[in-house]
């Protein structure tokens, strides 16, 4: 446990735990509404924020938060109004965000793409004390929203039309989901990196689904998995001197593969249990009554 003696590792681990909790917590709603790649889009937009941070000599974390929140609101508005050309507009937003980031970083005095690298792929040593403060505040917001409003977000993500008729403020909740996803991206940016953020939103949820039958269990297992891979990835990264973001994501995918392999026997056991619970006289196999008249007396 010698890694705990280093202040930078304590900060990195704290940031990793917060990422592990928040990314799957909001990611599950993105997966539920079948927009799993939204995190990717926001990650690209956040690059402009990082670039602006360098250019204006402001905190890249807060600038990225501001820009990605703005970008996510814009994406949500495009989804409402730009029905037919929505996908093209979203593509513009993604590429524009990425290009803007590269441009602003290079315009900044003494700036080059090298400054961007730690934001793109994550890094352990660069998580500063002020970053930790920002990440903690942002993560608290994400946890508050995803736990406090989980029933509302579930209803809206499951069936938007029905949610409207139960009187839920559907548009406000959609906006809140987008903003929360944007905030999560900036929480994850320092450790996992903007390019790989989305993986931690989606893959733990997909892995948990291999075992679960309920939303609540999927949520719990996804978050537990997110925390586990974030911590173990961060520690591995310390000892092996490999980038933390890539380590965490590869571990998550390994967990997905392992759970998928474990799920097959589980599904068979559940099927057997269901067959045993089925009342007699309701056979699982088809039985075709013998001796039926040809055509069964069909007539028009």
């Amino acid at each position, binding site marked *: 446990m010698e890694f705990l003696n280093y202040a930078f590792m304590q900060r990195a681990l704290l940031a990793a735990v917060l990422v592990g909790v928040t990314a799957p917590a909001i990611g599950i709603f993105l997966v539920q509404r079948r927009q799993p790649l939204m995190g990717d889009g926001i990650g690209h937009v956040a690059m402009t924020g990082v670039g602006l941070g360098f250019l204006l000599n402001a905190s890249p974390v807060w600038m990225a938060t501001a820009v990605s929140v703005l970008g996510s609101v814009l994406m949500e508005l495009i989804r409402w109004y730009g029905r037919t050309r929505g996908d093209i507009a979203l593509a513009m937003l993604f590429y524009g965000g990425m290009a803007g980031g590269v441009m602003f970083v290079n315009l900044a005095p003494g700036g080059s793409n090298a400054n961007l690298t730690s934001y793109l792929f994550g890094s352990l040593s660069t998580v500063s004390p002020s970053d930790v403060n920002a990440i903690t505040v942002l993560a608290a917001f994400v946890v508050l929203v995803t736990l406090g409003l989980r029933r509302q977000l579930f209803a809206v993500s499951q069936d938007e039309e029905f949610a409207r008729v139960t009187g839920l403020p559907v548009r406000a909740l959609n906006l809140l989901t987008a903003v929360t996803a944007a905030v999560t991206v900036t929480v994850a940016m320092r450790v996992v990196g903007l390019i790989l953020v989305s993986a931690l939103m989606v893959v733990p949820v997909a892995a948990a689904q291999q075992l679960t039958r*309920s939303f609540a269990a999927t949520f719990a297992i996804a978050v537990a998995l997110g925390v586990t891979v974030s911590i173990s990835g961060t520690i591995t990264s310390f000892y092996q001197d490999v980038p933390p973001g890539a380590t965490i994501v590869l571990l998550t995918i390994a967990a997905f593969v392992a759970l998928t392999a474990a799920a097959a026997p589980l599904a068979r056991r559940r099927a057997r249990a269901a067959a045993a619970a089925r009342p007699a006289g309701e056979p699982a196999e088809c039985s075709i009554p013998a001796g039926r008249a040809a055509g069964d007396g069909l007539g028009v």
Partner: protein
Amino acid sequence: MDEPVIAMRGVTAELGARPVLRGIDLTVRRGEVVALLGANGSGKSTAIRAIIGRVPASDGTIELFGTPRRGFRDWARVGYVPQRTTAAGGVPATVSEIVSSGRLSRTRFGLFRRADREAVRRALELVGMADRAGDPVNALSGGQHQRVLIARALVAEPELLIMDEPMAGVDLASQEVLASTLREQVARGTTVLLVLHELGPLEPLIDRAVVLRDGCVLHDGPPPKAVGQHALPGHDHVHPHAPAGTEPIRTGLLS
């Protein structure tokens, strides 16, 4: 007190540039069961979606419980069963989780109390799905799924039930459960507006039928009687495109 539950006057709506509703008048009074009939594309579903605010009406007025729809906030009084689609959410969810989402309009800030959990259990019992509460919805048949959606609408104990094609793609056993569930609701005084393709097993419950054609009201009155061969008791629907040897669908035995 005696204001109509639903009042539509001269409602028009377009989808894109195509007019779908061309001046619809529809009144549903308290305790009535009204069926909205018509061929595909006649505007039945659009009329329902205009009532719940999913499709904007370009002209005319829509009132719910005497309040203009735009200002209507009392959604707990309305239960809605959308047309069943195969698209489920991207994450597994159990029957009781889905039904619980219908109870949100009765809770404060989404906090569930014992009475809410009790209401979920009761709604599942009403549609005969109490023993499946913990099962994932994607493991259900079409008819069972439809029963879950109806339980989701009933769990808030609505005064008005709006259903879009509740019988479409539903097996016979589920059709009977749905018909008896609806009968109980009607006996309690629930007002019902439902879109139907044909009257089928719900026929005895229906007070009034409104038939649409090309976005206009063609008929508003007693439900049309089936004519010709369709009216014969035990009439078999034999579909020429059904594979030979399949069991004929005996709709007449159900009603």
